[in-house]
C-alpha cells in the first residue's frame, strides 16, 4: 500500500471547498484512497464502495475524451462543448475541450488539463494534447479506427474498470 506524501497547506472545509480552494491556488487536485490506492473524482469524504479515507494528490492533468457533445445555442451566443474526460488516473470527469471548434472534439482525443477562470470561479478545462493534430486522429488517439472496443467495452473504460474492481491499483 502506498502513502503518497500529504499535500502541505490543506485547505479548510468540506471536499468541494477544498477542491475549489486548490484550484484557486492553481493546483488541480483529486483524491486517492489510503486503503486501495484508487483515485476518486468527484471530491467526497470517503472512497465509494469501501468507505476508506481519502487524501488529496496532484492530478497528472492528462486524459482522453470518453464522450462529447455540443450545446447548441441560438445566435449570436456561441455553442460550446461538453465532454466526459477519462483522466489517466482512472477517473472520469465532466469538462469541456477548448482550443478547437466544439464539434471538432473527438472521442479518443488526448487532452491536457488547464485551470481557467469564469468570473471568480476556477474551473478545469482541457486542451488537445497534440496541437499539431488537434482533430485527435494522430497515433496518440485511443480509437483511430472508429469501430473498436465492441467486445471489451467495459475493460476499455478506465473508470468502469475501476468501479468494478473496487479500484485496486
Amino acid at each position: 500500500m502506498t502513502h503518497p506524501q500529504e499535500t502541505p497547506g490543506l485547505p479548510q472545509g468540506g471536499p468541494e471547498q477544498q477542491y475549489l480552494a486548490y484550484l484557486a491556488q492553481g493546483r488541480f487536485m483529486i483524491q486517492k484512497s489510503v486503503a486501495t490506492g484508487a483515485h476518486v473524482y468527484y471530491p467526497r469524504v470517503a472512497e465509494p464502495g469501501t468507505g476508506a479515507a481519502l487524501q488529496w494528490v496532484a492530478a497528472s492533468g492528462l486524459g482522453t475524451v470518453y464522450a462529447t457533445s455540443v450545446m447548441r445555442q441560438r445566435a449570436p451566443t456561441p455553442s460550446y462543448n461538453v465532454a466526459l474526460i477519462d483522466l489517466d488516473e482512472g477517473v472520469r470527469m465532466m469538462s469541456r475541450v477548448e482550443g478547437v471548434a466544439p464539434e471538432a472534439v473527438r472521442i479518443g482525443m488526448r487532452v491536457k488539463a488547464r485551470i481557467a477562470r469564469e468570473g471568480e470561479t476556477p474551473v478545469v478545462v482541457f486542451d488537445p494534447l497534440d496541437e499539431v493534430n488537434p482533430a485527435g486522429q494522430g497515433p496518440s488517439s485511443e480509437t483511430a479506427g472508429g469501430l473498436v472496443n465492441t467486445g471489451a467495452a467495459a475493460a476499455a473504460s478506465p473508470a468502469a474498470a475501476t468501479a468494478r474492481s473496487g479500484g485496486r491499483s
Partner: protein
Amino acid sequence: MSAVTAGQDLFPRGKTAVVGAATHGIGEMPGFDSIDLAAQAAIKALGQAGLTPSDVDGVFIGLPQDFLSGLSFSEYLGIRPRVTDNNRTGGSAFITHMFWAAHALMTGQCNVALVAYGSNQRSGAGKLVSSQKIPFFEAAYKPLMPVSAYALAASRHMHQYGTTREQLAEVAVAARGWAGLNPEAFMRDPITVQEVLAARMVADPLTVRDCCLVTDGAAAIVMTRADQARDLCAKPAYLLGAAAATHHMNISAMPDLTVTAAAESGARAFAQAGVKPAEIDVVELYDAFTINTILFLEDLGFCPKGEGGRFVQGGRIAPGGALPVNTNGGGLSCVHPGMYSLFCVVEAVQQLMGQAGARQVPGAQLALAHGNGGVLSSQVTAILGTSETL
C-alpha cells in the same frame, strides 16, 4: 465477497394485478394544477374497477414539485391510507411504486393500491420541470440537463458500435407512426427520417425530434391481490415480475455510457416472470430520447449489445413491424409530462386488456413496461400478463 448471504427472490408472480388504468389531460390543460390532473386520472382508473377514492388504502405518488405529495394527494381525494410511498427515482418512480405495492398487498398492509402521477408542466412552466440540482462538478460546464447526458451516451454508442443518426431517427419515426393510431397522442402527423435529421440540433447528435415532448398529462393505475382482481375487472393485467437497479446518479459517474442498469433490472424481472424477451408481445420503454429505446432494447435482451441501431431499422418497431414498441407513441410523440413511466404501464395494461383501439396488438398476452429515471440512472422493469400467462 459480501458478509451477507443473498436471499432467494420470492417476488409474488401473478399474485397481484392491475384492475384499472387510465390517462387524463394528455396535451394541454391550462388552468389545472398537477394534483387536479392526477386526481382525475385516479378517479377514472378506480371507476373502471367500480371503486372510488374511499376504497383506497395504499397511495403511491410523486408529483413534480410536491415532496409531500403522498399526503397532499390523499387529502385531496379523501383517502386515509395505511401505506404511502413517495419514492423518487426520477421518471421511473411509478414502476418502483408497483413493485412496493405488490409487496404491501401480499403482506396485507393494504388492499387497494393506487399509483398516480400528474403534471401541468406544458401549460404551467412551458418547459421540462426538474427539481434536481446539478452538482458543482458538472454545473461548471453548463450541461443542458437532461439532454446533454443522453447526447453524451449517444455519442459513445455511435463511436463504439457505429450507430448512426439515421438509426436514432428511426426510433422517432416509429413512435410517430404509433402516435398516428392513438387519438390521445399529442403529435400525430407522420414524420420522416430526413425531417428528424434536419430538425434543430439541440445537443449533438440529438435534434429536437430526438427529444421527448413537454406536455401536460396524468396517469393512474389501481392494483389489488389477484383473487380480488377477478371480481373487479374482466381482464386483469397480472404483475408477473418487477425489479429495479441503479448504478449512478450523474452522467459523469455512469460506469459505461453504453450499458444501463436495465441489463440487471430486466434480467431479474424476466427471471421472476419465467419468460424470455422473445415471448413479449408488446414493449413499452421510457423513450425520453431516441437513444433510450436503442439502449433498452439491447439491455433488456431484445437484441445483442451494440445492435440496437441496426435492430430498429426498416420499421421493425413501428406499426406493422416485427416488434411493437411504444405503441401509444411514447414520450417522443404521445405524452411526456416530466415523468413518464406510468404511461408505459397504462399502455401495457390497455394492450393486455384489449382496449388499445386502432393500435391494439392482436392477442397481446405478455407486455413489458420499462422505466428510466435521472440520466439513465434508475432502471425499473415490470412484466405483465393476461390470465393465460399465470
